[in-house]
């Protein structure tokens, strides 16, 4: 058996529909057509009456999900592209994210965001929105990096009683394959070391895990042993620091830049992320260094050479 990242997302939705009668799917072109990327292929046939085409109304799609969640359902909303979630932004950050805090009513909704840039996709089909949503208390951001992640994290998302922004990377959809999905070994929110090393740690998520491993392999030729850690979850305070990232005492956070809008997200995403780090182990990524004053350390990082990443 060989399964792609995209097929794992379909399989997880199949499993969620099969095991939980409260689950339904709602999104544009996801029923008979099977979704723009075919992430819901055949599900409307396999689960009649539980997979629905939605009008092109992201605001109303998310609002409907919140109402359904109040009534005990566990909706999965597919945004056709992560970029279009901005049309549902108000319902996500104001209605869904605040519901539990305001009313003590849980809001178990999953919003799938096909994220990230691929060649030729342009500024409106390439955005990475995770760091934007990570600014809002009340949302959980999940960013699967592997086929196994895609499967287990999506099932985790559906099982969670809080609204989840599930950022799946389009770049990984087709070419990332696994022979098996394995067992669920990591509880939600736990990070893992993808590649061990002892000189420095690169902490990243989603597609950049694979880029970072490749970079680490390049550096291996020069004698540097770079550890790569896969972060998994972000919420109001960004991707969280996991103690396992501190092993080398030199940590560096990496994320993929999107198109122009993503740039701004990128900067703030970095700052949110770093808040989760103990300041002594914190380092900014390249885009951060060029643009920002570190909220932890008062010094500007402008032009800081890479060997001074470890600052206090």
């Amino acid at each position, binding site marked *: 058996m060989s399964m792609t990242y995209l097929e794992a997302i379909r399989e997880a939705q199949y499993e969620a529909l099969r095991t939980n009668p409260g689950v339904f799917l709602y999104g544009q072109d996801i029923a008979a057509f099977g979704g723009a990327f075919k992430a819901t292929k055949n599900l409307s046939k396999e689960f009649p009456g539980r997979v629905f085409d939605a009008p092109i109304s992201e605001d109303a799609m998310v609002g409907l999900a919140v109402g359904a969640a109040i009534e005990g359902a566990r909706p999965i909303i597919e945004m056709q592209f992560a970029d279009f979630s901005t049309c549902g932004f108000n*319902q996500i950050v104001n209605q869904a994210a605040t519901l539990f805090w305001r009313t003590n009513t849980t809001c178990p909704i999953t919003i799938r965001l096909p994220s990230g840039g691929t060649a030729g996709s342009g500024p409106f089909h390439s955005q990475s929105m995770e760091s934007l949503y990570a600014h809002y208390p009340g949302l959980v951001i999940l960013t699967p990096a592997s086929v196994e992640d895609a499967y287990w994290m999506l099932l985790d998302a559906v099982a969670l009683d809080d609204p989840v922004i599930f950022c799946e990377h389009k770049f990984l959809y087709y070419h990332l394959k696994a022979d098996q999905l394995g067992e669920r070994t990591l509880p939600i929110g736990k990070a893992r070391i993808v590649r061990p090393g002892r000189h420095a740690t690169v902490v990243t998520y989603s597609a950049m895990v694979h880029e970072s491993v490749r970079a680490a392999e390049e550096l291996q030729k020069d004698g540097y042993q770079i550890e790569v850690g896969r972060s998994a979850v972000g919420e109001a305070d960004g991707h*969280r620091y996991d103690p396992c990232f501190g092993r080398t005492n030199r940590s560096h956070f990496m994320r993929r830049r999107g198109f122009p809008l993503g740039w701004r997200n990128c900067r703030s995403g970095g700052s949110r992320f770093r808040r989760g780090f103990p300041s002594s182990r914190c380092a900014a990524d390249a885009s951060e260094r060029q643009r920002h004053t570190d909220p932890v350390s008062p010094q500007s990082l402008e032009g800081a050479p890479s060997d001074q990443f470890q600052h206090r």
Partner: protein
Amino acid sequence: MLQARLLEEKLASLYRAGGRIVGGVYIGKGQEAFSSGLAVHLEKGKDVYAPLIRDQAGRLVFGEPLLDSFRTYLGVITGPMRGRDGNVHRGRPKEGMPAMISHLGSLLSVVNGMLFARRLQGRLGNSVGATSLGEGGTSTGAFHEALNQAAVEKLPVVIAVANNQFAYSTPNERQFACGDLLDRARGYGIGGHAVDGTDLVACVQVFGEAVKRAREGQGPQLVIGSLLRLSGHGEHDDSSYIPDTLRGSSLGQDCLPMAERSLKDMGLISDADVREWKEGYLVDIDAALSQASKEPTPDPFRESWRALSTTELVEGQFEA
């Protein structure tokens, strides 16, 4: 509507006196007939009712306890919002009464979702959902998306639009260009009804028909009530932008004395009834205020103010 008027007069006087009310006071003076005309057809425990800011009357008719109002206005933790969000934003979603957010038009799709889920779960039966909005709220994208969604899904939802001529201070000619807001119903392929929002008897009749059609499976029903807000947007607002000519027109009639006259003419109530109700309501209002005044306000140091319900994902509780 009499109870709502007396309650809101009390709230407004508390606001003017200062020091007691947390946040603003937004009352529904002049809109009580329209608000209660809808709610009287709803059944708590069965139907969904998502009131907006001028629905104190509808809330009481639907069965919201008087105490919920004072507890929220005084910001005490015993209220439905536990002192976290104020006043007209209160609700009890699990009891079929979602809590509005300030972003107008965004509540309708939530009501749609509640009905949609019930239908999926096979327990919709002949229950309906109902929500309110002002004419200004009909300009939002959220409203149009949700109205279209309700129509596509043929959901049993009744949308009450109180056309009170001004959205805060913005007059209708700066709000929409269609001849009649009822055109919106035709545009979305749903039922439409117009009513004199100052006339209680007419409101009860028209909403009765709209709710009946929704219960029978005829899909969404839009009810447009023409009236005038007889107060400011909030108690901070003197509403000087409303011209006297409009105040003196039929739109500016006060629905409360009108209702009293109509019901007396129909022989349904007497002066003694009204006197007795008024005395009883005032006693209840004072008792509720007195009780809520003694109750504690939030203490962030002792209470959990988590935004996530999943404890293990909350910052500070994840350290190894």
